[in-house]
């Protein structure tokens, strides 16, 4: 691999990250090649010592997306951060994907149950129209479920927020393990 191939591959792999950050990083590598050439090394030797641009990009992306997710906590950023961390290796696939799926399904089912409760009075209404019979106990049960659903809705808002935070922290802990566990943040 020569200088051009290295830089082009790295740039392509880093297309998701902030433009300025990408440019600055590419400049660092470009300068590295120039210093190496001055010392009489060939482009191929320098590229070989630098290591795979894909591997470099993977780590840069993982840190970048976690920073983004920490910043705004948006679903898209969390998803990208998760994918980036999983991309670091098989080890991460196992210890990240499992917790991720578990958290997502818990949150998802919580929301579903809450919505089902809230709309249950509506179901009683539909029931009246369809069967044209009315059971008072159904209405009471529905009102009860509706109330519980609303309570759960409020709880789920907090739970979702909390889980998001925990998960982002878990992701960055994960990257720090992969980096040698001496990151200190």
């Amino acid at each position, binding site marked *: 691999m020569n200088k051009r191939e290295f830089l082009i591959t790295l740039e392509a792999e880093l297309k998701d990250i902030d433009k300025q*950050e990408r440019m*600055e*990083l590419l400049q*660092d*590598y*470009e*300068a*590295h090649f*120039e*210093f*190496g050439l*001055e010392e009489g090394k060939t482009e191929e030797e320098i590229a070989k*010592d*630098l*290591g*795979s*641009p894909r*591997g*470099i990009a993977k*780590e*840069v992306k993982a*840190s970048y997306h976690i920073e983004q997710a920490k910043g705004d906590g948006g679903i898209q950023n969390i998803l990208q951060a998760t994918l980036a961390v999983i991309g670091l290796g098989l080890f991460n696939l196992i210890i990240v994907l499992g917790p991720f799926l578990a958290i997502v399904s818990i949150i998802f089912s919580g929301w579903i149950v809450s919505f089902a409760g809230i709309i249950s009075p509506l179901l009683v209404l539909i029931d009246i129209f369809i069967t044209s019979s009315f059971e008072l106990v159904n209405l009471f049960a529905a009102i009860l479920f509706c109330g519980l659903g609303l309570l759960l809705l409020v709880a789920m808002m907090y739970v979702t927020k909390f889980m998001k935070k925990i998960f982002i922290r878990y992701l960055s802990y994960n990257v720090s*393990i*992969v*980096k*040698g*566990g*001496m*990151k*200190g*943040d």
Partner: protein
Amino acid sequence: MNVQFKKGVLELCVLVLLDKQDHYGYELVQKISDQIQISEGTVYPLLRRLTKEEYFTTYLQESKEGPPRKYYQLTDKGRIYLQALLAEWYQFTNGVNHLIKEGVKDE
């Protein structure tokens, strides 16, 4: 040595080198790779991250030959962080050395 493990040590190496004097990126990479085997490319993202965390500041210096050199300078915050990492490092290596000695004695 294990590649992942070495990446954590890399941070310590960079901080220690900058504690003595300012260096530019290429110089840092060379000094480290003279001593331990690393993928040299991982140093630059590390330098960017530590700069963002305000452990370093950078300044450019033109040189007669080649591109301008981006020098890294350790900040006070960086020095404090280095001390913390060093303490952790000594504790860790002392522990491992102790275990090795005991292991050797038993044989």
